[in-house]
């Protein structure tokens, strides 16, 4: 049996030789993509265009403007003198926020018990930068407020410096965005690569009409399945290694846990996605269908990697759903081993979940495929 499987694998590779550049393209293209996108998006939100209407034009208001400018978050535009300018720019989506400093701000600020007001407007059409802008505003205003209070009270700044806290960020001391984003991006690319590749295995043959040929050859369906799986597993593992290397060396994401364990779990994950992909490929009548299904499943799974929002904050039903998504557990494992230095015991629930899911998916997929082939 082994010999027959090997001959099948050889045949696959021969076929692949004509399109040998396809897996190479996907692997290297994917890694390159990860590099580029990771580099582009693994940075803090900054340079948000900010429009200021200073109706006060005093030293105090200018001080506020300077403080805002000093944050990295904002990119100060030329000051304006009308609400219309702000409205237009907001409507157009040209600015993420605007600040209106009303006349009298400085006066109110200088008097103890005064009521200085600052108006800030956020562009809610982009909520993610808007939140960052909000945070920045609050920070700047708080600082100014504190300093003013200290002055009013005639206190020694050393005595009352207000509330200060020291922030320790574990697992990601430098608060490098890349630590957050690149594991999820890696997960996405890996899943898409494996799924796409696996999904094409059978649907391609079916479309070409060579599936029948395969079936009349003296292979058992199990051998066919294994024979077709091996190239995909190879592609998956090479892809993973390459991307892991990239993430580690280019983005300085550490590998704090056990590397062998990580590879073992990557291997298991590859097989799980392979099972999914092959089920898709048998189910699809054409490569076009396979593509649409992979897109659909890939996008949905990606949500559960926690890239855009943590899973815990999703509606309850969705959270239950997350448990049956292999990518979800895989990302937990990935982040655990890379960033937290987790050992097997620490990530055990995810590993068990992945194994159980894997067994179920692989078992049913393979059974379905066997039945379809026979």
């Amino acid at each position: 049996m082994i010999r027959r499987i090997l001959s099948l694998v050889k045949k696959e590779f021969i076929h692949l030789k004509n399109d040998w550049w396809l897996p190479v393209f996907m692997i290297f293209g994917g890694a390159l993509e990860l590099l580029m996108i990771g580099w582009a998006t693994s940075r803090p939100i900054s340079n948000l265009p900010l429009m200021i209407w200073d109706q006060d034009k005093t030293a105090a208001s200018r001080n506020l403007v300077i403080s805002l400018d000093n944050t990295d978050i904002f990119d100060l535009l030329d000051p304006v003198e009308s609400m219309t300018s702000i409205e237009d720019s907001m409507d157009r989506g040209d600015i993420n926020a605007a600040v209106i400093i009303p006349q009298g701000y400085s006066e109110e600020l200088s008097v103890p018990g005064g009521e200085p007001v600052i108006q800030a407007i956020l562009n809610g059409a982009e909520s993610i930068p808007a939140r960052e802008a909000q945070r920045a505003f609050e920070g700047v205003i708080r600082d100014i407020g504190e300093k003013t209070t200290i002055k009013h009270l005639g206190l020694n700044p050393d005595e009352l410096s207000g509330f200060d806290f020291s922030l320790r960020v574990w697992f990601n001391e430098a608060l490098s965005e890349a630590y957050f984003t690149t594991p999820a991006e890696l997960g996405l690319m890996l899943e898409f690569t494996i799924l796409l590749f696996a999904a094409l295995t059978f649907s391609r043959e079916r479309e070409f009409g060579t599936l029948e040929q395969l079936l009349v050859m003296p292979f058992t369906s199990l051998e066919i399945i294994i024979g077709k799986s091996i190239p995909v597993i190879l592609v998956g593992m090479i892809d993973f290694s390459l991307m892991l290397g990239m993430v580690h060396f280019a983005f300085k994401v550490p590998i704090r846990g056990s590397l062998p364990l990580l590879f073992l779990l990557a291997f298991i994950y590859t097989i799980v996605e392979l099972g999914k992909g092959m089920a898709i490929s048998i189910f699809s009548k054409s490569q076009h269908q396979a593509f649409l299904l992979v897109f659909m499943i890939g996008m949905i799974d990606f949500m559960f990697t926690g890239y855009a929002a943590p899973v815990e904050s999703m509606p309850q039903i969705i959270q239950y759903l997350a448990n049956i998504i292999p990518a979800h557990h895989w990302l937990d494992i990935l982040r655990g081993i890379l960033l937290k230095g987790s050992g097997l015991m620490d990530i055990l629930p995810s590993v068990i979940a992945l194994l159980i899911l894997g067994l179920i998916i692989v078992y049913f997929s393979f059974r379905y495929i066997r039945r379809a082939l026979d």
Partner: protein
Amino acid sequence: MSFRHLWAVIRKEIQHILRDRGTFILVLITPTIVLLMMTYALSADIQHVPIALLDYDQSATSRSYIQHITAGDDLDLYIIVGSIEEIEELLTRGKIKAAVIIDPGFSEDLLAMRGFSLQIIIDGTEPESGGFAVDHIGWRTEAFANQILASQFQTRGFALDSIQPIDLRIRAWYNPNLKPRVDLVPGLLSIVLGFPALSVALTLAREHEHSTMEQLLVSPITRIELLLGKMIPYIITGLINVIIIPLLAIVWFQVPFNGSFLLFFALSALFLFAELSMGMTIGVFMRSQSAALAASLLIVMFPGFFLTGIFFPIASLPEMARMESLFLPGTHYAIITRGVFLPGIGMDILWPSAIMLTVIGLSFTGIATLFFKKKLA
């Protein structure tokens, strides 16, 4: 250009689409399903973030502080621990997302109106929860401290209404509660409508793989007739989704729609044209469908997901990436959808994006025509 030829190709493609029931259904329902799932997943309201507290102060003030911090729905007190090791373990296991360590001099410093400090530890692997925790711990601590400080000031004879004199009034336009769903859904439209359109990349390769290409090449049909003839049916199927998906967004997800639907429809057609032209260009270079798929995934899809300003603001991208995003139809369409849905703006403001889409569409159609040779080799 002969409209006869064009129509012949369009008709053939449509006949194929309609007779392939499975694929047709998939093309129609995939965007809907993806939009549903993604929106639900992304409309996260972060709540109940579990934190741990380590109280070295053990005073009435510190206990009051703990209560204050965890009083709301935003932060949940998971457990009060006795050592840093416990915190470490809990963080590693993912049981908590943050921890606060109250130093021994906490209440003393606070009551003496000295600066006091806290240690906050967050799980750096999760930006959202971590950042959320810092923010809310910060706000609540500040509120707590201000309360104490204010009463302290008053007992010492300082007349002070509040520690924070400045009234910062923040309003968020178009999306008052900054609900992610409201602005993400229009942005997701470019992903959900655009990606299936990329299947146009397959169509030339399919003719090769099914051995029907030779007869096409040998006929008098011109390149532009063939390419356009193949693109137009995809615009039509795309437009069907352009009607269905926004309806879903508006009715089911209650995303506000303040603009003109006619304008939206027209600009969506333009977007589809641009996206299709990119897909077609890829298709011209690829001989096999698998290659076309892989290429469109890498060249249009992934950048279209990350670099079009939907999840990550374009202003924050490095210069080179920002340039690249200009070439992606999704970038301009996201501006259009956000604009039409939320502020409800019209063509007078959106015309630059419309022009960009037209330019992209025409350029890539031109490139595809140029590089598509009516030769086998």
